């Protein structure tokens, strides 16, 4: 089971629902329980009040003495060990005991638990009392009667009722209530999860579509999204489109700039070559200015080439497509095998299918092209290219069987214009460009000795901001 994270909207909503639902159910149960138990007590009180009234109605005063029939209309008062019993007391209860006891109260030691509380005439009190192992409701009603002599006689009519029946009823109610509430809560949780899934589905679609854009499977977010998200997805599409257009414009500008600068530089270079050849053919002395101009021309070319190649370098933009390394690498190797056909180099390619570069295809070609071209140029017969990685990282290695290098030579290689081997044509900017482009993507370039005998170039990248 996946751990719920507070960084996820879905997890937040699930956690909030799981906390809120028991709270609501608990409060609801408490309210319903209170209402029911209160209603139960009120019913009990009304019933006991009626019993008290029945006792009062049956009571008579004869010579200042209270008289009540032995058998009462309520049978429960006439049975021994009944759950209901009643007594009548006056102010002498503590010394003389009760004036009257129902049959059902004859086996009760009233004086041991009843304190003989006195109420004002016409007042009543409903309370609870613990007798032995049992709980009782108690209703006490106070009356004052005048006898034939005009004497005022106070009496307390007290009815006791065992709570067990009422408690059992409450227990059964609570039992039913909790079962129903549990079931409703379970249903609500299930419904909430379904609603959550349905409600968050468009966000999931946006994430999937963004992932497809990053993987290069889609050019933009093409799904149908709800209006709450469409503003955001439209903005993302505009951003992707703007980014692509800007790159295209940038590429075209660079191409035009390169064409505009390189052609005059090529003409100067060619003119100087002609001048040198002519001087050689006519046995004229070498002109130092020709060499000077040639040197400066080469310098201009080197700077322009370096800056133009470097300018290709993009960056780890959020909507960079993931470009598979293998097909690009195979394309470059196939092209270079034509160029270096005379060398008959054996190229071993060991690239994982999922190894990909998150950036501009032009930048990847610049990286691989420069490194593989160097391997062809300086290697003898063997080149090994390997790459592994996932959607979030890439490890690339290109090695050859050329001559090994000292640590100082390796340091020089990544500097613009520095070349370890000046016997082979080149401008010495290849590795410097590779270093610059990889840096712009946060990558790392390491030069090592290869087991094949020559140089091993290692490139590693760790992409951030990947949609998962």
């Amino acid at each position, binding site marked *: 089971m996946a751990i719920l994270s507070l960084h996820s909207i879905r997890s937040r909503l699930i956690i909030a629902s799981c906390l809120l639902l028991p709270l609501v159910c608990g409060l609801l149960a408490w309210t319903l329980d209170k209402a029911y138990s209160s209603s139960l007590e009120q019913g009990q009180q009304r019933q006991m009040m009626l019993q008290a009234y029945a006792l009062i109605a049956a009571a008579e005063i004869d010579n200042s003495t209270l008289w009540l029939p032995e058998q009462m209309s309520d049978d429960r008062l006439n049975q021994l060990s009944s759950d209901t019993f009643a007594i009548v007391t006056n102010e002498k209860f503590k010394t003389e005991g009760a004036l009257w006891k129902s049959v059902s109260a004859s086996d009760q030691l009233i004086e041991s638990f009843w304190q003989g509380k006195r109420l004002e005439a016409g007042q009543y009190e409903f309370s609870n009392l613990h007798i032995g192992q049992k709980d009782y409701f108690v209703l006490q009603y106070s009356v004052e009667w005048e006898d034939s002599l005009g004497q005022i006689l106070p009496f307390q009519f007290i009815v006791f009722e065992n709570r067990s029946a009422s408690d059992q009823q409450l227990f059964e109610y609570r039992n039913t209530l909790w079962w129903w509430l549990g079931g409703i809560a379970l249903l609500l949780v299930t419904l909430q999860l379904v609603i959550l899934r349905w409600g968050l589905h468009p966000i999931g679609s946006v994430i999937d579509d963004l992932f497809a854009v990053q993987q290069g499977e889609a050019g933009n977010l093409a799904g149908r999204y709800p209006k709450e998200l469409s503003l955001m997805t439209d903005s993302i599409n505009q951003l992707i489109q703007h980014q692509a257009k800007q790159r295209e414009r940038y590429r075209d500008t660079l*191409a035009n700039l*390169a064409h505009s600068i*390189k052609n005059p530089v090529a003409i100067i270079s060619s003119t100087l070559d002609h001048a040198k050849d002519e001087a050689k053919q006519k046995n004229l002395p070498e002109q130092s200015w020709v060499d000077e101009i040639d040197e400066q021309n080469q310098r201009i070319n080197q700077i322009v080439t370096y800056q133009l190649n470097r300018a290709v370098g993009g960056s780890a933009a959020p909507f960079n497509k993931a470009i598979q390394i293998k097909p690009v690498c195979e394309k470059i190797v196939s092209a270079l095998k034509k160029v270096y056909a005379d060398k008959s180099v054996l190229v071993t390619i060991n690239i994982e299918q999922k190894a990909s570069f998150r950036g501009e295809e032009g930048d990847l070609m610049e990286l691989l*092209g420069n490194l593989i071209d160097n391997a062809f140029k300086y290697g003898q017969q063997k080149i090994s290219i390997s790459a592994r990685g996932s959607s979030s990282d890439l490890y690339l290695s290109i090695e050859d069987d050329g001559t090994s290098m000292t640590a100082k030579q390796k340091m020089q290689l990544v500097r613009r214009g520095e070349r370890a081997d000046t016997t082979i044509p080149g401008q010495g900017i290849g590795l410097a460009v590779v270093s610059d482009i990889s840096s712009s993507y946060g990558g790392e370039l390491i030069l090592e000795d290869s087991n094949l005998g020559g140089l091993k170039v290692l490139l590693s990248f760790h992409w951030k901001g990947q949609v998962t």
Partner: protein
Amino acid sequence: MKLLIVEDELKLRTQLCQALNQQDYKIEQAEDGEEALYKGLEYPIDLAIVDLGLPKMNGVEVIKKWRESGIKFPILILTARGHWQDKVEGLDAGADDYLVKPFHLAELLARVKALLRRFGGHSSSKLVFGNLTINLSAKQVLLGEQPIELTAYEYNTLEYLIHHSDRPVSKTELTEHLYDQDFDRDSNVIEVFIGRLRKKLDPSAELSPIKTVRGQGYRFELKTETKN
């Protein structure tokens, strides 16, 4: 050998033509993609030098159309930007080598010679046929240790026959590839050159390097012994 130079920059194209002419190559020129496509398809070209940034039709498209039409001559691309995307696209379209602008003419000439040699089926520029040694790079022919004096046309005829030694080469083909367009095709000058070549290369008539194939033309008969 007839070379097609496709470059829109007039000054650079003129310089390239001059430099290659000096090396005894016959030149055809094109200043845009459409002209290049036409000349590559219709003219007897042995190698094309194509700038990628051309008006009307870009260099990559021209190369693709040539290859689709079955054109097999080697192609050297020139690119101003020097980006690998352009180079790979050009090579993938059917080019065989690339050169980034600006370049030294010496480097261009070396690439042209290497491509012609490779397409002639030779991996080395020094070809040894027994007593006869031909250095394609220096355009020099030695019989034993002695250099043989050949005129430019004689050397070009010999080189063309060596590069196409797998089949007989007709007089018409030799005329088309070794001479300018306005050359008199009915003349028997080819026969004269072949006769002179045979005498210079095989004075003792022991090697018989060039054989006449009746009704088809001439074929270079010697096989390379060693390659350096």
